[in-house]
């Protein structure tokens, strides 16, 4: 999703980017491993609670916009049940089918829509949400208007059978400076030439 304004970032962009990161690459692999122990997107799990647990919410400060709490209000009260159900269905499939490389999220405002829904609708078969290559789910949410200022705290009470998610640990790489590699490379040929001169 590319938008002209606000310059740089906004909560929409932040949450979309966050979701896109979580459902691709190493984070997707982590969620898939966890899914073998706990079915994150079954009927017993609330989408808002899962979003809170996996960090799928805006964290930056936006003056005049309680983005984090508005996001949880949106997930709890404004996202229709049919959309909830279809998103969970898509994500559950992405957890189990390794041919799916990623789930990509985007949002569009459309004043013609009566309520939030997935594009093209909430009742399509799963293949209809795949990209043309068939390896990425496209969760494109259509919303009728920007959210009101209603907000609520994230759900802190656990869902049944919750287990902690073992995220991949950060690995710090030793920095390589420009000069280092070249010096070593320059030394080696000198040694070889020295050996050669001894042989002859």
């Amino acid at each position: 999703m590319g938008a002209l304004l606000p310059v740089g970032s906004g909560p929409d962009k932040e949450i979309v980017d966050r979701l896109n990161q979580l459902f691709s690459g190493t984070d997707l692999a982590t969620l898939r491993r966890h899914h073998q122990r706990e079915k994150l997107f079954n009927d017993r799990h609330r989408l808002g609670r899962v979003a809170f647990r996996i960090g799928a919410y805006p964290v930056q400060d936006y003056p005049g916009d309680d983005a984090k709490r508005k996001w949880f209000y949106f997930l709890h009260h404004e996202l229709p049940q049919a959309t909830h159900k279809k998103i969970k269905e898509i994500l559950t499939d992405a957890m189990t089918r390794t041919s799916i490389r990623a789930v990509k999220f985007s949002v569009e405002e459309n004043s013609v829509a009566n309520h939030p829904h997935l594009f093209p609708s909430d009742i399509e078969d799963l293949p209809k949400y795949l990209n043309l290559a068939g390896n990425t789910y496209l969760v494109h949410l259509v919303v009728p208007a920007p959210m009101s200022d209603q907000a609520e705290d994230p759900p802190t009470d656990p869902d049944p059978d919750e287990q902690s998610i073992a995220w991949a640990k950060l690995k710090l790489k030793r920095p390589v400076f420009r000069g280092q590699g070249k010096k070593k490379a320059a030394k080696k040929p000198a040694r070889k030439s020295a050996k050669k001169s001894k042989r002859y």
Partner: protein
Amino acid sequence: MLFTNIPGNRLRAGRALRRRDELLRDILADFRRTFPELLFELDQASPTVNAQAIVRIDRRVVRIYGGLAYHAHVGVDGLIFTLLHETGHHLSSGGRLALREDLACECAADCWALTEGAARLKEETGRTFVIGEAIRSLDQLTQPCGGGTKADAKLCWSMNWSRRKRALAGPESARSVRRCHLPEFFASEVNYI
């Protein structure tokens, strides 16, 4: 689209509104002719002051929302630049968004809009725009947003409106990055529980 919105100063009625309707119709017709591979949509009723490049499964779309399209402070130059920028997200071959590789990043979209995009539009329809005027009108909209933080601005000029304005005014000095890692940078700041 869900969150913060810039307060709009929308044309309400009368001759100015009729003229804006005609202007938008003409501009969108020119864009549809020049870039037939894209779908251009105007959401008249929307109060949102923004425009967006989106991918709907098999269709690439540029949407301009009513709050921006009918904004009293945005003139023809601002509208053309906005649409070219969004088109650039789809058609620029430059830097990609790290987490959405089917779209070009902000700086690549800007560079494309000012060069290839503007040239194609002029060649096909004769329509041109003055970037100085576009900046002046968008300037009035972006001030309330405040732009990105200092840390963001270090990563890319497109993240800070002041630097972006300078880059737009002198595009030859603005470098476009190959792959935009800003989304990863922001996402890495999230704390897990």
